[in-house]
């Protein structure tokens, strides 16, 4: 009800504004007409937050409509219904699938004010000049195209970006330290018979296979050329190990949505599982101990960005660029970083965080006072340190990026078999 009233009121306001604009000279028109623009954004629940839409309305004046879907649905929609959205908030591995369809348009980096401040991971792949590039679909490999209208990927910073990076993180296993009662150091623990019937894995094939590969490699069973691009033989061997574990009753359940993973963990059905960072937060905010356990083999990382629909043009396109520039200018970054994600331009986000928050989330320092997320939940007490430490420590230990393989179709079939086994 309140929503309806709000929209009617804003409609009246914009109507009056349009009237005023038509009576006034040119420069005003842009400022007024932008209020009539509505950009339709869809993406995974991670960054499709209503708070962002509200802030856009406040700061930029136009309306952002958000639709949150799961990653399969996001891929589908981006690949098959280009006219159903203006802005796609997708992950880099999804971009690898979707970009060649031509449904997204290349973005001119000269129009991105903070382009030079974007973290190296998204530009040349290197966090620091001497870091090695992790396996999988590293964002910079699908981050650039040859020019406007391009449907290819180029290795160098061509000035035309496929996605503007917005959010990323390093994923690992989540554990219930109170129910395990001993240190966990390796991905191999997921298949440890000690946790028989108490382990879980996510059932999104493209990500699940990577977690499975991290586990098999940690067990010393398989050496992968590239975990993000396995050969059919590597896929077979990985799935054989996982199937055997499944038949032996290792897994309690598989999960597909964020909520499922939270419920599995907080109900104690599962004590060790692949998990996403905000899910850990959700479990913790219920007063249940849960650790995002750093593991010696490293992290499986993911990154998301926003892409523009190829049908976007004119003033709506200008508004979209304005939105992107606003996105990188710090407020959203701070908002996301206070939930445990990273922003593509951390230095702009710093101004939107307290020194305590910046120290805890980014620098890996002890919290000096309680850390709360933007929604007011207390996530850490004074004296606690973030699991995994600082930005460099966490993002510097990425073993593999979420990816889509050349043998994707084969992998999907094998994954289906595994789930059906």
């Amino acid at each position, binding site marked *: 009800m309140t929503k309806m009233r709000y929209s009617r009121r804003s409609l009246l306001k914009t109507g009056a504004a349009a009237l005023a604009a038509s009576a006034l000279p040119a420069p005003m028109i842009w400022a007024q007409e932008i209020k009539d623009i509505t950009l339709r954004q869809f993406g995974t629940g991670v960054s499709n937050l209503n708070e962002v839409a509200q802030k856009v309305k406040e700061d930029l004046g136009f309306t952002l409509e958000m639709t949150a879907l799961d990653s*399969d*649905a996001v*891929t*589908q929609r981006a*690949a*098959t219904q280009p006219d159903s959205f203006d802005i796609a908030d997708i992950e880099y591995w999804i971009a690898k*699938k*979707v970009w*060649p*369809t031509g449904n997204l348009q290349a973005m001119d980096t000269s129009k991105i004010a903070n382009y030079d401040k974007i973290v190296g991971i998204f530009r040349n792949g290197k966090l620091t000049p001497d870091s090695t590039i992790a396996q999988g679909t590293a964002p910079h490999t699908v981050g650039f195209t040859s020019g406007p209208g391009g449907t290819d990927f180029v290795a160098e910073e061509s000035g035309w970006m496929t996605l503007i990076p917005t959010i990323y993180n390093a994923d690992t296993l989540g554990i219930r330290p109170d129910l395990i009662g001993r240190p966990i150091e390796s991905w191999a623990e997921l298949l440890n018979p000690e946790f028989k*019937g108490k382990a*879980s894995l996510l*059932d999104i*094939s493209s990500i699940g296979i990577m977690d499975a590969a991290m586990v098999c490699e940690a067990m010393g069973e398989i050496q992968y050329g590239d975990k993000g691009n396995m050969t059919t033989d590597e896929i077979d061997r990985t799935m054989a190990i996982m199937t055997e574990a*499944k038949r032996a009753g290792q*897994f*309690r*359940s*598989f*999960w*597909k949505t964020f909520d499922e993973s939270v*419920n599995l963990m907080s*109900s*104690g*059905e599962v004590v060790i599982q692949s998990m996403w960072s905000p899910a850990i937060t959700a479990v913790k905010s219920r007063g249940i101990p849960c650790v995002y356990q750093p593991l010696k083999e490293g992290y499986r990382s993911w990154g998301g960005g926003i892409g523009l629909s190829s049908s976007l043009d004119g003033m709506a396109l200008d508004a979209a660029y304005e939105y992107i520039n606003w996105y990188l200018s710090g407020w959203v970054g701070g908002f996301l970083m206070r939930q445990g994600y990273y922003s593509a331009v951390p230095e702009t986000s710093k101004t939107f965080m307290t020194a305590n928050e910046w120290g805890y989330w980014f620098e890996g320092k002890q919290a000096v006072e309680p850390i709360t997320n933007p929604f007011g939940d207390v996530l850490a007490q004074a004296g606690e340190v973030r699991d995994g430490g600082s930005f460099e420590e966490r993002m510097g230990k990425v073993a593999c990026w979420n990816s*889509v393989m050349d043998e*994707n*179709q084969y992998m*999907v*079939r094998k*994954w*289906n*078999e595994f*789930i*059906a*086994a």
Partner: protein
Amino acid sequence: MPPESISIAGSFETPPLVRPQRTRRGHLASRHVTGWLLAAPLAVVLLAFLVLPIIMIVVVSFWTATEFSIVPAFSWENYEFLLGSDVTWRVLLNTAKYAVVTWAITVVLGFTVAYFLAFHVRSQTWQTALFLLCTIPFWTSNIIRMISWIPFLGREGLANSALLSWGVIDEPLDWLLFSDFSVILAFVHLYTLFMVVPIFNTMMRIDRTLIEAANDAGASGFQTLWNVVLPLTRPGIMIGTIFVITLVMGDFITVRFMSGSQSANVGRLIQNDIGLLQYPSASATSVLLLIVTLMVIGILLRLVDIRKEL
């Protein structure tokens, strides 16, 4: 079934003597034309929303797919993979298992409940009241009804804590949740009413004098039940069976949630394919499921001629 109704109408044709008179009254008055016109709206709806989509699914099942696009083609690849993979057969078997077990339980439950309602509850007010009571769970969505089992059956759920505190078990029972048990439990919970309603309906139409006659002829209660009530309720049982079997065979969400994604049925295979943009492969699986389900229903209909019995 429009053609059927027309042929029935035809069989009641008036004698030829009257015929010339009627033809003179023009085409619109002809019973054939009226019959067709009456059947047309339903035929159009069925054509647009049932026949055409199925044709589309069959056509797409011969196409091929790449990562992000589907390519019109005529290829047997989807079927080759589907029929050549032992996973398909295992999953079909699993689907059949769910269907048969769920059917067996719901038919016993449904028959008992309907029998009680129809023959033991004498007042019609009570009958209606109790029947409505059966439908109360349907006031919420079936996903809610299903998911509400999860906290109940979990390792630290109500069932386990109750059993533990009564001393019946020493360790929580794992198989209560995320197992075939929980899947079938949810199916039975969700679909028993589909069995109760048609059985109750046919039972209400059984002529009570038949039961009196059986009594008078010296039949015991069980004999009456077995030789009189049961044969007369067959159409109801069959309709309920068709409901339950098709619902269970086509389900994907119950199996996913209640088995914790650990078990698969055909619906899950299709869902996974769709999620991964493999529409042709999903179509091929759908066609297979459709054929299997139609075969099952075909066999059921051979056992009982529903139309004759209704």
